[in-house]
């Protein structure tokens, strides 16, 4: 930490710009934030390095708090659905297991749907998580139509009066049109079968991801309306700063964060902790 003694000048602003960019906040957002600080400096409303850093933290917190939203599924009457989507390897299946346990230990009846019918041993993997979370799993054979699995899971959820239907989908690159069409089809099944059920569609994003996260969010939201982000692997050294731009430009809130590979390694997103960690 270099604050507390440094001269208040362009050099300080450059150092802040470096912190922002190396946190994956992205060039244009970082420049915009630093420019705003430059204006505050000119106005004379900042007089110490501490005030400068505080001003930056305040700006970041403003961006995050404007879009902050808690999970809309979980404390209501009737069935709610949570669908996890995202590119390959970000932690969707693991997050599905973690969320299942979270709601189950809270007394909710949770049903899991294995909608990744493509990848080797994907269903086996979710099966282990369902066992660990003590929740039933709806699955079809490998290679089955994911939309059919979801349809089946909806039927089961209604019949068993489940509180939450948790849908794990296959990893897919947002650039693959046919895979994004497959996702749209799953969305249509939900629209048609349970239009009244509150729905969360969460983009599962790896905290190590760079600027490509923006393309991911844009294209996924064109296929299924996204209600939020799960930011995973924050137990590493990556800062996950891309969520600042996603909040600022796409109004996407982070709802949950993954902090490890165990079933309990899931936390609610806390903007204060997150912004503080950016400067550590």
């Amino acid at each position, binding site marked *: 930490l270099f604050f507390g003694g440094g001269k208040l000048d362009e050099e300080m602003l450059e150092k802040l710009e470096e912190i922002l960019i190396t946190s994956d906040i992205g060039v244009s957002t970082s420049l915009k934030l630093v420019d705003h600080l430059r204006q505050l400096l000119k106005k004379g409303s900042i007089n110490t390095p501490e005030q400068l850093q505080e001003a930056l933290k305040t700006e970041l917190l403003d961006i995050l708090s404007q879009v902050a939203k808690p999970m809309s599924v979980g404390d209501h009457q009737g069935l709610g659905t949570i669908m996890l989507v995202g590119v390959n390897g970000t932690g969707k299946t693991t997050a599905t297991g973690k969320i299942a346990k979270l709601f189950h230990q809270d007394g909710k009846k949770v049903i899991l749907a294995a909608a990744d019918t493509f990848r*080797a*041993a994907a269903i086996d993997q979710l099966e282990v998580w369902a066992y660990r979370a003590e929740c039933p799993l709806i699955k079809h054979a490998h290679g089955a139509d994911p939309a059919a699995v979801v349809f089946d899971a909806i039927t089961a959820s209604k019949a068993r009066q489940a509180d939450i239907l948790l849908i794990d989908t296959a990893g897919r690159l947002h650039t693959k049109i046919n895979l994004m069409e497959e996702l749209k089809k799953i969305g249509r099944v939900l629209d048609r079968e349970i239009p009244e059920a509150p729905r969360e569609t969460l983009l599962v994003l790896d905290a190590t991801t760079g600027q*490509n996260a923006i393309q991911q969010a844009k294209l996924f939201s064109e296929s299924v309306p996204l209600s939020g982000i799960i930011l995973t*692997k924050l137990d590493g*050294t990556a800062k996950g700063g891309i969520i600042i731009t996603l909040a600022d430009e796409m109004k996407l809130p982070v709802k949950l964060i993954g902090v490890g590979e165990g079933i309990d390694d899931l936390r609610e997103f806390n903007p204060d902790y997150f912004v503080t960690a950016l400067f550590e």
Partner: protein
Amino acid sequence: NLTNKLDSIFKKLRSKGVLTEDNINESLREVRLALLEADVNFKVVKEFIEKVKVRAVGQEVLKSLTPGQQVIKVVHEELIELLSGGTHAPAPLNPKKDKLNIWMMAGLQGSGKTTAAAKLANLMKKQGYRPMLAAGDIYRPAAIQQLEVLGQKIDVPVFSLGDKVSPVEICKKAKEAAEAKDCNLLILDTAGRLHIDEELMKELQDIREAVSPSETFLVCDAMIGQDAVNVAKQFHESIGTTGLILSKLDGDARGGAILSIRSVTGQPIRFASVGEKIEDLELFLPERMASRILG
């Protein structure tokens, strides 16, 4: 894109007369922004721009009728140099067929190691090798099954001792099994791990010590951002990576992190994984990557 931006900068400068070193700086600022947007590490960009500047303020640019294109050309060439190793380009991978070669996979969680292990086995089998895969990930649910399904697809034996035996033991026994079966290539799949997890990094060191792999591939996701430099440095210092595999290049991530990884590990980029199918593995092409990074 970068070409258009530089062209418009130089058009504006040209109208003011002769080009100077200061004018070049403005164009280099644009190059810097483009590289940062492509996820090249902040410090790596700084060093790279310094290198480019030395050439960019030379006659080849200042006297050129198309200075914008000249700057791009210099940047392109320097990128390719960095990516390919230039005159110090490494010898191609050509393991001897008359002995057992052992390759180890390493990297962060979800980077594509298990898939890449199977792809490598498939590629080398087509080149006449007799490969075997070892299921060294005992932690991730159904990781062993995943490798077994892939192995069956390509008819390559998968050695496994289940998930209650240590990965070091599994790799040792896999080596014995490969020798007994007269295989000449053994590929070790390992669990994804954080570069800051001391215990798991030690596990990789122990495997390395036990079976002495001739290649240790760091498998990295093309969409990784600024943290790539920390990850690569730590993996390289802890276990000595000998090559890089960049995965998910079939997406639209610019992949600038590869520059950072290459500059801190100094190791050759061997393969590019370009899809989820088993045949989606190619030799890495520096020229194609340079164009992709510049955007």
